[in-house]
């Protein structure tokens, strides 16, 4: 199962990279969001899927799924949400001020 998940993550990274290289602002932000998904899958796969039970201690089970990657991913989901929200507002402001969402037109000053 790990191999399959890693390959899915690999495909998502390819897509995300392609989006990051494009010059449309929304596409770039989508790229970062998808990259986060890929990383979550990777973390999950690295932890392995050996355990039998959810990581909630009870008398019925003795082995649990690795809880550490889950804690990491939980943190990451929240942070990436904050980052995406910030990016989106930034994109909105950029468009409002410059009237374009084309990154190749947003080059600032030549000699700064």
């Amino acid at each position, binding site marked *: 199962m790990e191999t399959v998940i890693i390959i899915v993550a*690999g495909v998502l990274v390819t897509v995300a990279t392609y989006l990051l290289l494009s010059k449309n602002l929304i596409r770039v932000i989508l790229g970062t969001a998808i990259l986060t998904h890929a990383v*979550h899958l990777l973390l999950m796969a690295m932890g392995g899927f050996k355990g039998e039970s959810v990581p909630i201690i009870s008398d019925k089970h003795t082995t649990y799924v690795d*809880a550490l990657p889950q804690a990491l991913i939980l943190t990451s989901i929240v942070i990436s949400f*904050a980052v995406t929200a910030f990016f989106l507002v930034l994109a909105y*402001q950029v468009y409002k001020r410059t009237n374009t969402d084309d990154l190749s037109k947003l*080059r*600032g000053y030549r000699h700064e």
Partner: protein
Amino acid sequence: MLTINLAILLPFLAALFILLFLRRFRRFHIGWFVLIIPAILFALLLRQIPNIANGKTLIHQINWIPSFDINFISYLDGLSLVFGLLITGIGTLVVLYSIYYLSTEQSLVHFYIYLLLFMGSMLGVVFSDHLMVLYVFWELTSISSFLLIAYWYQRKGSRYGAKKALHITVLGGFAMLIGFLMLYVVTGTFSIREIIETIHLYKDHSLMTPMIIFILLGAFTKSAQFPFHIWLPDAMEAPTPISAYLHSATMVKAGIYVVARFTPVFGGEALWFWLVSSIGLLTLFWGSFTAIRQTDLKALLAYSTISQLGLIMTLFGIGSLSLHPDIHVESVLYTQAVFAALFHLVNHSTFKGTLFMVIGIIDYQIGTRDLRRLGGLISFMPISFTIAMIGSFSMAGLPPFNGFLSKEMFFTAILHLKDFDFFSIQTFAGIFPVVAWIASVFTFIYSMMIVFQTFFGPYKEQPGVEAKEASFGMLIPPVTLSALVVLIFFFPNILGDYVIKPAVLSVYPGVTNEMIGSISLWHGFNKELLMTIGIIILGIILYIYRTYFKKVYIAFPRNISFDTLYNNALEFTDRLAKGITNFYMTGYLRHYVMYIFLFFIIVLGGSLYYLGAFTFSLNNDQPVHPFVWMIASTIVIAGMTIFFAKTRLTAILVNGYIGFAIAMLFVLFRAPDLALTQLVVETVTTALFLLCFYFLPEWEKTKVVRKVKMTNIVISISVGTIFTLIALSVKSGKLFRSISAYFENADELAGGKNIVNTILGDFRAFDTMLEVIVLFIAGIGVYTLIKYTNNKGVEKLEDK
């Protein structure tokens, strides 16, 4: 008892004290406080003279970075004592002088902090036994010199001179660092004492030649040797006390110190001898020749300093010969050269310090130091005239001043060079005395120019200036120094026996006290005296006909010089750096992201491939759940769809789908917390995207150039592939045991049944707290961006 380590630290502590406490007292002249520091240190070093003269040395060690074998070892022997006395002694006088030279209206805090910084680092250079510590202090002297030259930073010349000095000396410093590292590689130790003891084992090492060149580069740049001398005249933009202190008495002698310190290491090597003595001789000649051309008194003194440093360098070159393995009997003669070098070093500090201070006084009182606008000051400034005369005549090598003694010894050393029959010296031995003699004639001429053009002839009145003698306090330091100039002539052996002999002994560990002769005033009518008489006669003739003589300089146009070379090199580097930066800093996000990805592909992928790190095995894999197959394949399909999405709505929805599918996967992976969070966050994110979708324009059907598109595809597929390969390799080879078992005690340790929750809320609670802060900051960012309605940015963009 004050240790030597503390002596190095004292100036730094004083600088800190000024910064913390004294900066508020605007009306108090901080100089009076600063004056105490070098005076105390000078007295302490004076007390060490009897010990050192008896052959003792002082060592103090503080372990600094023991794991890298870097320790703060201070070492006081004869050689470092000479320099220490110069630094603190001249330092005391210079500080006293500066109290009268600078008024409280100037930024004294800066001045004295820089000065103390320099004093401390210079003491560090001469007292360090450890090569790395020496190097650090060495660079600190360059930096403090930079700061002091640029003290009047409002002037363009100051900034130019400061930058030039920094460029050249730091360049040499780097070279020296390379040399030191090579020395470490060869000998396995950073301690100079240990290197001196073991160096004879490595005389045939292949790194010997580059090592000598690199270390000498450091010494030559610092001591303003030809062709690196060009920074010193521009450094004269500094206040005169600084020129007297750093750029004549102490810092420029750091290079000479290094040459002296490393003479026991490299002495006897042909390359060392040739480089040190020939560059020294060339500098001696060129400096004195160029000095005559100057009209600015300080520039004249700068060139004269360059020339005198060359003289000392030459003597050290000759002195290194006595360490040649085949020399036994004659060695005494060549050690005498080092004796002469150190003697002249001290003498130069006294007479040059005097001259700088006098010129500072003239500049201060008259308002100019241009020779063409000066003259006839003798009746207004009789004391200044007397000390200027003492300094100049000593520099010219006339009795009864100390310069005469060391000049005679210099001639003795250089005349005996022909007795040496290695390194094919005899072929060239004839040139040395001739060049030295001609240079001395020039020295005589410019020394006379200082005295006679300034103080004799018709008085040229400067508008609004009434010529009068300087204040008493300002005269004390130069008078003291000029008194020394005379005293050393009459009692040279007090200095020679107690200070210079121990220094010579530390340059030649094998030599005993009795082998070094003492200084005598009268040698009889020998060649040296005849040379001096010749200098005086020819010098006077050339001085009288100097207007004719100066026509020689037409042959050396000003636009072909090392200065021009430096300026052009600087300009070229500027343009090159600008070109390179403009080449890759294109302003396109796409390019910057591309650099990162290309680095990832080429360096990371390449090196892992090269190391054979890619592995693959299915051994640890769990069987794939049928639902996972289904969801995974839909994620892949959804991902592909984004590639071809024509409208932004499709792309956003597909992104949302991927997020929800991953939430489903979390359910299958037995991660209920993740699934819940992912569902909530994905919903809100999609909503946010759609909100933006409302404000942002529809995707234009832009024609993407085929080549660009292909590049993007190739890069993204490579990145994806390498990512997958690395992940698979990591998965296939588990190197460490999982640490997660620790958290399974959650109930006992944290009192919670949900392991993920206890990790976030208890085990790693600090991380979670900081995460909340990140969220908070992002929230502030979002809020301000929405509320921010300043229109300045818009105008700027339109201006373009």
